[in-house]
């Protein structure tokens, strides 16, 4: 039996899936879980899932531009920081998924989303430092919630992709 997972995805289909991921990423900023006085947004979950399921360059569009669109509509002051950080995060996750341990997919994906989480925290920390003032202020007010959000996003995305076999479900798309 031919393995559909090894077939290259047709261009239009990947484009549509990427667009839908972009929309999901854009609206994911509206869903959050309150943790103390901070909120954990689901954007990280969607960005990581998109990066794990799509080819790297398409993942950049889904994560980077999707989050950029979300910020453009609801939180415009950070949109350029988001665009750069999310694009790099998606690219790194996508490339690591493509290039690392092919025989150990869970380990490979875990390493990829962990690297993505580090990039997300560093990117936003630098962005906030530039926007809001000093390093100490950023460290006290932003870094901890971001670390929690990044770890949460990476773990939930990994769980959803591997436990619910989203990759297989995506490959079964009719075209």
């Amino acid at each position, binding site marked *: 039996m031919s393995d559909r997972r090894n077939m290259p995805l*047709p261009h*239009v*289909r990947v*484009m*549509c*899936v*990427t*667009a*839908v*991921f*972009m*929309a*999901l990423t*854009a*609206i994911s900023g*509206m*869903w959050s*879980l309150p*943790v103390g006085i901070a909120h*954990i947004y*689901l954007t990280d*979950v969607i960005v990581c*899932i998109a990066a794990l399921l799509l080819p790297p360059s398409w993942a950049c*569009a889904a994560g980077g*531009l*999707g989050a950029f*669109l979300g910020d*453009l*509509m*609801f*939180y*415009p*002051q950070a*949109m*350029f920081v988001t665009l750069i950080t999310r694009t790099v995060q998606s690219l790194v996750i996508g490339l690591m998924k493509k290039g690392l341990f092919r025989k150990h997919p869970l380990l490979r994906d875990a390493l990829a989303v962990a690297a993505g989480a580090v990039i997300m925290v560093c990117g936003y920390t630098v962005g906030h430092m*530039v*926007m*809001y*003032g*000093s390093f*100490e*202020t950023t460290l*006290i*007010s932003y870094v901890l919630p971001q670390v929690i959000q990044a770890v*949460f996003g990476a773990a*939930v995305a990994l*769980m*959803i992709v591997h436990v*619910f076999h*989203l990759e297989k*479900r*995506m490959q079964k*798309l*009719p*075209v």
Partner: protein
Amino acid sequence: MLADITLGQFYPADSFVHKMDPRVKIVLLIVFIVGIFLAKNLIAFIPAVLFVILAARMSRLPVRLLIRSLKPLRFILIFTFILNIFFLQGNLPEGQEPTPVLDWWIIHLTAEGILQALLYSLRLIVLVLGSSLLTLSTSPIALTDGLEMLMTPLKVIRFPAHEIAMMMSIALRFIPTLLEEADKIMKAQTARGADFESGNILKRAKAMIPLLVPLFVSAFRRAGDLAMAMEARCYHGGEGRTRLRVLKCTWRDLWGAAAAVLMVAGCVLISEFVHII
């Protein structure tokens, strides 16, 4: 409920700013951001503040809408200001000592530090107002059209500008649909006993899975249907496609660009020649 949500912040009006070319508005926002980051003291912020006031007046947007865009930031503004006054000492020339305001135990407040904290808060307020002016005066579709046109020169380096713009348009079209879908799934799962509102973080994270997995499956199905429909209509990319809305620069855009250049020049020159912190 969720289907009635306004997409983005766009406020339709018949104004000078609304009629400007979205490409020019995007470039002007970038120039504006560069300008406010080049302003090194409170006096140098005057051109940026004047620019925002002028743009807000010419956009005929209700003031309450602009004020509302600052509302989500009120805690961040207060919190970062308070933290900044403890950590900032001001950009003093070498050899000049800061003016102490409070010196007790580990707390050292200086007049220069307070002014600098004020400068950062003002920068954030002006940044939010400037960005909000763009999103309030430009529809999301016009913004994606503008972004596509700005990305067009990148086609030289094989950047897929058309595909990116097409995906952004599809994404914007899908946002209300997916919100409605998420709402339906949430109601269906609540009827089955799912609880999205209470419990600790792990419990809440677990509760999100019955929402996210069906949402993804449904999103994949919709993407598949859309791809099939596009292929059935012989979609073949951007080559030779015409546009419904053709963007055109007018005298309004020239005035806008001139004002932005003046603002940046003002910020830079005042920062260079006036030193207050």
